[in-house]
């Protein structure tokens, strides 16, 4: 494999921009440029030593003879490569990460320590069950916490993330309808829902219809009632919703849906606002996923892994997936899987994943729950809501808060970009706040207001941090209102300026290829238009 420049330095690195701070290396002190492993590694280098030579092989024609093209680095080079890359990331460990609906809270390190105990990290999912009683106890104990915190009847532990949990809940609804001999094809989903909701409904074969909203950002109960009927399987509602508001009519919505023979799915992405304060089971919810990587502090890892257990009502619990960990009278635990489902869980819709779910997330989440306790979790919701309202009321004089007049928000504050100077939008504010040392808020979501900015501070931020953020966002918002041209090209101080996303999508370069093949040209130009 070719290595254009084994030193890692490439001449074009310092060619960018008419910036008088350009250096020979392209580096700027602690801001270090890092080439790709394919540009600094070689197929002959390895960072792993073995105790024995490779034995002789006799695999015949199946033997892999052609080069694979996988670069290797020594351990020292590897540590440096990934450490340098890591420093080009913003993270909750560095500062406020106010992405609305993402609940970027502090990730306690005790969670990490516990998950790495050999008794949890180094056990195989198919070990004889008598050798993994502690692991099954963790799953069962976590399930018990989730049931009690939500006031629900049962919980499906295997879904791998939030969207997988949505699928689990929707399949439960489908199975329940099938058991009733009914073929209802429509799920009602508000426009303000996360994109995963309609995608999940469609993935499971439902057609999706919108639920109208009231002018103050909530589900229009009367319009919903008017649409309910024998073709409606149920509703998917986020509560608190993505405008940061509690659905005051939730119980009435549930009652109406039930009366019409449907089921209520609740997107639990925003459970952090109400954990320990309100139980979804008391609001008539039939199924709700819980993102352990949001409310219960398991790290998001730059895009996962997550974990999405689904709490279920008495009506839906019989249809939940296998396997699950059951506790028996003698104190022992057993997995109810294919073999025993017929006797113990006969109406299950089946299996959603290999093995038993995200164990590594279960140990972290249970550690977090035990640390907080029921009293601490209640305080979590209260502080999360307090922090969000503090931001809402500290900025609603400079940014439009579309629903600010209707009362307090829950755990996230919503603003729009109405009132900025001509040509300035939410994107400019987001990029400007990067230069101030913050990750931007969620932008352009929910879709129901213009240029949405959804700010979720979480409970793990101090007042001092919030005060500085409020000052920074006020400053950037005022620049956008006054039409400061420098904001249009922000960020100025990040590892990269604004990136050309159109180019990336038009000529996708999705894998590295040797420059000798096509210098500077897209490597996958054969990718067609559809």
């Amino acid at each position, binding site marked *: 494999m070719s290595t254009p420049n084994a030193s890692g330095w490439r001449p074009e690195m310092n060619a960018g921009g008419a910036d008088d701070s350009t250096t020979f290396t392209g580096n700027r002190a602690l801001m270090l440029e890092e080439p790709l492993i394919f540009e600094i590694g070689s197929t002959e280098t*390895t960072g792993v030593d073995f105790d024995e030579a490779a034995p002789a092989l006799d695999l015949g024609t199946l033997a892999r003879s052609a080069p*694979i093209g996988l670069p290797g*680095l020594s351990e020292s080079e590897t540590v440096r490569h990934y450490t340098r890359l890591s420093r080009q990331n913003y993270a909750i460990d560095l500062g406020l990460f106010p992405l609305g609906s993402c609940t970027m809270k502090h990730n306690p390190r005790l969670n990490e320590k516990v998950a790495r105990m050999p008794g949890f990290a180094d056990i195989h999912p198919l070990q004889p069950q008598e050798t993994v009683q*502690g692991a099954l106890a963790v799953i069962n104990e976590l399930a018990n916490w989730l049931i*009690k915190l939500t006031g629900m009847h049962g919980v499906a532990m295997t879904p791998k993330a939030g969207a997988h949990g949505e699928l689990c809940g929707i399949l439960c609804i489908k199975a329940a309808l099938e058991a009733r001999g009914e073929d209802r094809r429509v799920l009602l989903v508000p426009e303000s829902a996360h*994109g995963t909701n309609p995608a999940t409904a*469609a993935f499971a074969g439902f057609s999706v219809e919108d639920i109208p909203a009231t002018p103050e950002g909530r589900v229009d109960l009367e319009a919903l009632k008017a649409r309910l009927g024998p073709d409606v399987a149920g509703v998917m509602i986020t509560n608190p919703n993505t405008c940061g508001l509690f659905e005051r009519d939730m119980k009435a919505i549930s009652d109406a849906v039930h009366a019409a023979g449907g089921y209520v799915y609740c997107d639990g992405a925003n459970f952090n606002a109400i954990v320990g304060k309100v139980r979804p089971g008391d609001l008539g919810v039939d199924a709700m996923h819980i993102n352990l990587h949001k409310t219960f502090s398991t790290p998001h*890892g730059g895009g996962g*892994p997550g974990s999405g257990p689904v709490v279920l009502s008495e009506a839906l619990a019989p249809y939940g997936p296998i396997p699950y960990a059951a506790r028996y009278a003698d104190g022992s635990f057993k997995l109810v899987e294919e073999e025993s489902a017929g006797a113990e869980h006969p109406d299950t819709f089946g299996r959603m994943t290999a093995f038993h779910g995200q164990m590594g997330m279960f140990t972290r989440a249970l550690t977090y729950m035990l640390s907080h306790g029921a009293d601490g979790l209640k305080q979590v919701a209260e502080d999360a809501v307090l922090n969000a309202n503090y931001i809402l009321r500290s900025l609603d004089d400079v940014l439009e808060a579309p629903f600010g007049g209707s009362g307090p928000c829950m755990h996230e504050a919503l603003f729009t970009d109405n009132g900025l100077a001509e040509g300035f939008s939410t994107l400019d504010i987001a990029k400007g706040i990067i230069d101030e040392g913050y990750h931007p808020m969620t932008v352009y979501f929910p879709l129901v207001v213009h240029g949405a900015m959804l700010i979720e501070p979480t409970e793990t931020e101090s007042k001092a941090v919030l005060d500085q953020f409020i000052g920074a966002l006020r400053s950037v918002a005022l620049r956008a209102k006054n039409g400061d041209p420098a904001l249009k090209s922000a960020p100025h101080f990040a590892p990269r300026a604004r990136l050309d996303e159109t180019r990336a999508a038009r000529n996708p370069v999705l894998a590295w290829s040797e420059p000798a093949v096509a210098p500077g040209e897209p490597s996958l130009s054969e990718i067609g238009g559809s």
Partner: protein
Amino acid sequence: MRYLPLTADDRSAMLGVIGAASIDDLFVDVPAAARLDGPIADLPGQASELAVERHMGALARRNRAAGDGPFFLGAGAYRHHVPASVDHLIQRGEFLTAYTPYQPEIAQGTLQMLFEFQSQVARLLGTDVANASMYDGSTACWEAVVMARRITKRAKALFSTGVHPHYRSVARTMAKYTGDVLVEGDPELVPTTDWAELAAAVDKDVSCVVVQYPDILGRIDDMAALASACQASGALLIAVVTEPVALGLIKSPGEMGADIVVGEGQSIGVGLQFGGPYVGLFACKAKYVRQMPGRLCGETVDANGKRGFVLTLSTREQHIRREKATSNICTNSGLCALAFSIHMTLLGEAGLRQLAAINHGRAKTAAAELAKVPGVSVLNSAFFNEFTLLLPTAARPVVHQLAERDILGGVSLGRLYPENAGLENGLVVAVTETCTAEDIAAFAAALKEVLA
């Protein structure tokens, strides 16, 4: 509470700014009847780090860790040595505590890593492109079937009997509700795969043929003829790889003509973790990239002309396309993808080939030793690091008897196929570089004793 920085004074000052008299005023939209008065009963109160660690440590000790003695389990999850630097690097807070890289200017670390991961996976699996990961192998497998339906506009999928039973089970669950037609069944205890029969069964109604390589019984075979048969009928060949270390030694599915290659990446960098989180690999030919599920990272330039990376082709995805998306997946398995990528970088091609060869050599040694036990034979004609033993009796009780002797001696087909008595004498044994000669000898001796 140690994770909550607000003080009582902060709280009352903030309520003052908000104009609320108490915290309860902020929950005014919650109907009074639904508001809880105090902490939920039956749950404990907050606890110190020491107390929690003690509780969780006690639970951890009730499990027999794989590293505590002889260990030979595989069947979709493999124990390999993971270099210490992998776990150190994935715990860098900038990786661990970052979100999905929606703001590329301050997420180049994650994005470049994903670009490298995609490139490594595509090369390993022998395809043009790979995505930024799925949940795991089993869900990636079902997504591949759905993708084949979209591309071929046909709904009949033929599954090889050698596909992991959990993967088949996931597909069965989903197909029940999506209208896909699956043709599938349990394997037979024969030395070779059913791929020739599948090649004969492909017709114009078939969207895809799904094979596993190496398969659930550890068998390996050439899929070139099957790929040709699929191509002739306009069906796609989907290959599932649950032990990617094998591809350091044997031809990749892409090389042999597979259209979509999915896999479980756990065995490189991730560790066993009782089944999750793992990392789904998803790769395909370039012409199908716009039908792929999941995140894709692509190369571009910034406003100053510097190379950079972004999430791209997102018009396939749920946050843009909503009910018309190619999949509902959002969060994937980013940190496990990072672990995979770091481990693969440490190995490099030379290291991967050597690791694979050592695995194969150890497995051959173990197969030979275990076949010496009276009444025991090896089913496979060819294998990588996993093979199926035929015992003279049902394997499931034997596994428990071995466990009593502190030997974790494989996965019985009785556990994997509880309703198929015809398979009950089969025992799937995986042998990696972590199994020593002493482990193999102890396993053989214990097996002999149990079967005596």
